[in-house]
């Protein structure tokens, strides 16, 4: 996957700018970091991916949120469970054959559920820790649902950008 690292860094900067400049509502957290992790090459093992997730979260907290550790806390489980999620959604043969994710081959009907799953996996601990027992359950549930829907839609664009090159090999 050529240029994945550069795309990852550029999208990280977009995420930082989004969190800093666009404060839409208390009930909306737009995040596409989980989709970025999902779209990284599958040959990266969970350890390497977890370290990437931890560093990404820490860097974002350092320059935007100020609550060091919060994004890392929510992002590391996504990295740990990525292989299992990929196997569950796309089938284990993808990992066995050593293939990469591809929009052309897997199609949106599999990419979208995978994005929903990784985004939900990130948002659950993130909202729980950010709330810290302040709000009751239903406002948090509303925040989770709204954030999941909007973040997944934005993540689809991110997946399109990150997986664009991969599709070429299946022409």
């Amino acid at each position, binding site marked *: 996957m050529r240029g994945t690292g550069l795309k990852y860094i550029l999208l990280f900067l977009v995420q930082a700018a989004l969190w800093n400049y666009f404060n839409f509502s208390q009930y909306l957290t737009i995040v596409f970091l989980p989709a970025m992790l999902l779209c990284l090459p599958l040959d990266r093992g969970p350890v390497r991916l977890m370290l990437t997730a931890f560093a990404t979260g820490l860097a974002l907290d350092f320059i935007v949120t100020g609550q060091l550790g919060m994004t890392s806390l929510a992002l590391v489980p996504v990295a740990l469970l990525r292989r299992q999620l990929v196997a569950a959604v796309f089938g284990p043969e993808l990992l*066995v054959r050593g293939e990469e994710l591809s929009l052309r081959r897997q199609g949106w009907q599999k990419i979208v559920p995978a994005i929903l799953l990784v985004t939900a996996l990130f948002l659950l601990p993130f909202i729980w820790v950010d709330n810290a027992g302040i709000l009751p359950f239903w406002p948090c549930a509303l925040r989770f649902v709204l954030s999941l829907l909007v973040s997944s839609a934005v993540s689809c664009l991110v997946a399109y950008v990150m997986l664009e090159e991969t599709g070429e090999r299946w022409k």
Partner: protein
Amino acid sequence: MPSGRKPASFLVSAAIFILLEIAALSLLHASSTLQNIWLNRASHRTMAFLWGGGETIRSHFQLERINQELQQENASLQERLRAYERLGVEEEELARMAEREASGYRYTPATVVKMSRNQMHNYIILNKGSEDGIRPQSGIISDRGVVGIVEAVDRHYSYGLTLMNPQMSIGARVGRTAVIAPLSWDGRSTGGAVVRNIPPHYDIEPGDTVRTSGYSSIFPPGIPIGITRETRLVDGSTRQVDVRLFQDFSTVRYVTVVENLERSEIMALEAKGEGRP
């Protein structure tokens, strides 16, 4: 995990996962309480450096509205000045007493460099620091009311918690009855707060003004905070009042840092009193 993977690799992944999560939790725990550690200070400086320019650009598009507000404030101050000039000798003495009371506080204008608004624990970074005389535990106010409290100070910047923070509670004087009770953010909107623990026999009407009580040694008394809305009885023993804040946190740009010059004296006296049997 896929069936072909070795258990040892799974154990290594699990161990690193646990280590990273513990590290993240430790960082989070430290960053929410210890603003003085160097990492947080560095983070604040970086954020101020990175986003200060962006806030300036954003504020440029609000200049017309800010100018109108400043004109209104100027007109209101001129009106008050003329009223003072018309005062008689007795009123002048009263005014001098009020002035002496006000002189116990130092006011420093500051500009917001960065402010978070969509988290549960929101903060503010100002462009004035210890070199400008800003001290921790000073109040942050605007022409529309209370904004927050300074928590940590660097040389050129200061970091504070805004009222949009569940940990923050300020003493408020409510309505005509002037009952004193703690006010904190409602956690739901950028303009809502709640006053809790009001004894049920106090009659609070919607539309009453809520002001600072002056009991906290941080804010001067009488700063308008908001107006009351709905009132409800909680657990049959206390009254809880919803408050619409005058200050909309989505538009704040210029603030004033207010320091109680006699705070250390008050704190020392309090400590002495607590030490007595």
